[in-house]
């Protein structure tokens, strides 16, 4: 199936999801509001922390805000798009995946299409505000290259999280039940990714470079953004996420081959 056709199909799937959610308007409103508030309290925590401090390891309030916004925005976007992978064990258990295999289009497209949850966009409101604050208050000298790097960070982060969800979903093929091991990584990353990773010390920095490459979308491009390194190559680091995504896709394909349908 051509890419154009796939995208148009994805949009149609997403539109059906939006329409389904709009059948329950109150629930939708509360979800947006609730998620927005969660993100807002996290922002407050940073705000209050910097009431007593001027900087952490050389990072100012504005720098941390920038980091926080990037990770939050990526995480929210990835949840919006990749929610299907997050709830994949349910899709397998209900037999919905059988049905997906009976349709003449990619199962991945159907998985992310059928679980497009617009209600998850709440934190996007918060993170857009904090991003604006961060852009204004950080030490970054804004020009075309730095702006482009920021965009890459958000995009790369989104893909990285989606990759992790995909990896988690692949495990369902072998275990059927949900696996929380990947949640520890994704939610963990969202939590500690609020601060530049080197504030946690070298060990964590290494783990986040070689095991799960968070630093590609956060620490290294940030060094370039803040002018700590003059090498513009660091700004292009988020592109490396594509390799990680490819690995996740490989595991996914192996999982699909191992698929054993369940029930009736």
């Amino acid at each position, binding site marked *: *199936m051509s890419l154009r*056709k796939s995208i*148009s*199909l994805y949009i*149609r*799937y997403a539109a*059906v999801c939006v*329409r*389904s959610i709009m*059948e329950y308007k109150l629930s939708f409103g509360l979800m947006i509001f609730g998620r927005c508030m969660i993100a807002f309290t996290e922002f407050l925590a940073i705000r209050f922390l910097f009431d007593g401090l001027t900087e952490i390891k050389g990072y100012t309030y504005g720098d941390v805000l920038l980091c926080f916004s990037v990770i939050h925005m990526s995480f929210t976007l990835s949840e919006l798009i990749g929610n299907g992978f997050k709830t994949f064990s349910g899709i397998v258990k*209900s*037999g*919905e995946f*059988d*049905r997906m*295999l*009976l*349709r*003449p*289009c990619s199962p991945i497209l159907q998985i992310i299409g059928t679980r497009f949850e617009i209600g998850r966009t709440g934190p996007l409101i918060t993170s857009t505000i904090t991003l604006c604050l961060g852009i204004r208050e950080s030490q970054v000298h804004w020009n075309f290259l730095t702006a482009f790097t920021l965009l890459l960070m958000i995009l790369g982060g989104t893909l990285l999280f989606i990759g992790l969800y995909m990896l988690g979903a692949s495990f369902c093929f072998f275990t059927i039940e949900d696996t929380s091991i990947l949640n520890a990584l994704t939610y963990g990353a969202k939590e500690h990714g609020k601060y530049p990773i080197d504030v946690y010390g070298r060990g964590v920095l290494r783990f986040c470079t070689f095991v799960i490459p968070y630093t590609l979308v956060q620490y290294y491009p940030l060094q370039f953004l803040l002018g700590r390194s003059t090498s513009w190559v660091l700004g292009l680091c988020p592109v490396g996420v594509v390799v990680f995504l490819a690995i996740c896709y490989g595991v996914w394909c192996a999982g699909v*081959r191992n*698929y*054993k*349908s369940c029930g*009736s």
Partner: protein
Amino acid sequence: MITMEHVCKSYKVAKRKAGLGEVCKSFFRREHEVVHALKDVSFTIGEGEMVGYIGPNGAGKSSTIKILSGILTPDSGTCRVDGRIPWKNRTEHVRQIGVVFGQRSQLWWDIPVIDSFELLKEIYSVSKENYNRKLEELTELLQLSEILKTPTRQLSLGQRMRCEVAASLLHEPRILFLDEPTIGLDAVSKLAVRDFIKKMNREHKTTVILTTHDMQDIEAIAERVISIGKGQILLDGSLQDLQTAAGVFDVAEGSENVPGGDSKAIEKENTATQSGINLDHVMAALYKKLDIM
């Protein structure tokens, strides 16, 4: 059109005894049992045939359907549908088949039925003219006009099943798999679905493979019956063959002590098999008999 040769499929099933202690034990050491869902299954089905695929629960009916529709890969054996290997040419294959699972819905729960149909039209890339023509035909035959604008979640089971059948035929498949399509339906809906399937077969030469536990379905629809038990094909023939086989077995069982049998008993048995309810009894006897053999 459909050939299955020596297809085997087995599953690994985790086993443990009841009780919390056993749960803890199984956490460390799990015992598995291999269940042979299909053992050397072979059959051929020609174009335009209507085949009833019957067998007790857990006999391997759904596994067969899943292999034929490309969801599952068999452990060994070959399977070809219209020259395609279902699980290898999945995308091309599923364009040509329609599948109805009586126990699962393929319609989107919260949106009107017609919207689900529109989405299916996009998924299968059905052209506008073909879609409109088919939709009109299906609406008329299945009396859908009043329920098309209702969200799926508000339909009754009978209404929903009529929509399910329509949904699986929008792309004009050449083969239709029906997995227990009349389960839980009332008399009127059952008759409507059956009549519709027969009409589809007559007018479009759609090959129909139907699994069911409802013997009246079989009587009404199937020209040919394949019976499976414990993963093996037990019987392949006409409904008449099934009745005689079951009848003979049943009589043989009832008259073991009387060599030659009682001719009156045979006659009684044969008349009894004319109605569906008694066919259920006969089938139960047949399953029991054949499984021992």
